């Protein structure tokens, strides 16, 4: 499987991981103040940023760079 396939697969996995149904009624608190459901989704946001960092490195659209060249004076 190529980079695009892996990226699509991980993207779908991230969408599934968003549904943290196992934490629905979990009232535990992290670090004494952060409800676990909120902590999970805050960490999820960081993982999503790392995912996009991988995406722009691995599959940056080459044709968009061509447009840069076309537009150059």
């Amino acid at each position: 499987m190529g980079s695009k396939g892996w990226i699509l697969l991980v993207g779908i996995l991230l969408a599934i991981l968003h549904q943290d149904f196992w934490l629905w009624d979990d009232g535990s608190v992290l670090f004494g103040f952060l409800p676990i459901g909120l902590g999970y989704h805050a960490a999820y946001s960081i993982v999503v940023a790392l995912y996009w960092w991988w995406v722009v490195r691995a599959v940056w659209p080459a044709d968009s760079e061509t447009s840069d060249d076309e537009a150059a004076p």
Partner: protein
Amino acid sequence: MIVVVIIVIYLALLLVLGGLSSRRFRNTSDDFFLASRSIGPFLLVMSLFGTTMTAFALVGSTGKAYEQGIGVYGLMASWSGLIHSAVFFLVGIKLWALGKRYGYVTQTQYFRDRFGNEMLGRLLFPILVALVVPYLLIGLMAAGVTVEKVTAKTEAFGPDGVPGWITAGVICLVVYTYVFFGGLRAAAWANAFQTIVFLVVGLIAFFLIADSLGGVEAATAKAEPTRLIREGSISRLHFTSYLFIPLSVGMFPHLFQHWLTARSARTFKAPVVLHPVLIMLVWVPCILIGVWATGALGTSKPPNAILGIMVGRLQDPYISGLVTAGILAAIMSSLDSQFLCLGTMFSQDVIFRMKGSDQLTDSQKLFRARLFVGGVILCTYLLSLVTTKSIFDLAVWCFSGFAGLFPLVLASLYWKRTTAAGAIASICTTAAVWLILFLQSPGKETLILGMMPVVFIVLASTVSLIVVSLGTKPVDSQRLQRFFPMKDESK
């Protein structure tokens, strides 16, 4: 009184910044509308983020978390981190490239050219305008209610504080002044400055509010326990169905305009990666403040007022003033782009088309654009004086309409078989389904079969687009060649 003085100083600073950015203004309509397509990565990150983080993100999220608890973060913020960046990546970059190649300034121009159909433009224009207006309204309403609550029960302003209509009016004037002189370049600079202000001040406010409640641990301990979980307040299906709401960014006219300002495609890399983290930095504190407010205020306060009340409880007026200025920064960083985009749409899609763009000199175009921005601001201000809906719920309805138009922009970029009739069917279906569901909603958040109405709007829009496109004559190959060059096919 000190609170108001600090807010006035902040607004004056903003005008100075607008003045400085106008020195770079090239006095052309292209610079007014698109900053001559010269915006680099830092300004693009800040302006895209500042534009998407509206009153909804601060005032609305705090109020909604006060009502429904921590699940509000998952509903909007973490979905947005994934979906917004996907839209920037899949839609934004392509539209930027096409905009640069063919000189588009508005979405209507792109769709009209993509499908070679005049009616499409006439149909899309009023719908986009009708959907942006409520989005503007929530900004003015939030600014008014926040300053009102922060200044309430003070010696200088009496029990009711500064009336909302005064704050909304002053904000309109400030935004209009810097947009008037510097156009989108001034808006981008102001957005960057205001985004930094609301990120920094937001974090300061978070810790000060926590401190006023006895520390972060005590604040969470005192909060209503039902707000620390999702059981009982948000169903699983409801939670999942929010996935469709962030698709709306793909059709925000103000975001389209910001995308076109990028200097190069590479400029998009930073916004795609950093956007989810920036969302987290703003939303986590807001959600916690909303949850903590249930312990400090009880559970019967109006949700729109929660952030203002919590800031107003800070004993130090200097801090209250600074934090209020930060909230106004977040609100204004969206208002300027939205006002400007509506002015741009009226100028480009109505006046320039009626008169003929070639018939007007550049200074005449500039004059008309400025006049229209002023007209839009005045109309929105008057409407804000009579609107009373919940900020969060009004925004979600507005996002649902834009999300319904997302299949159209996606198909126009990736599916050659999309036809003008399919596009028109998709727009009409979105408008009809949205209107029916909105009119039937009782005012509070409406669910259909346990899901958000947006699910049905997007599905209906997609089905009508596909069915009608397949049943009508394809777009001619010469036109398609302009939008899907051969090199794309070989990859």
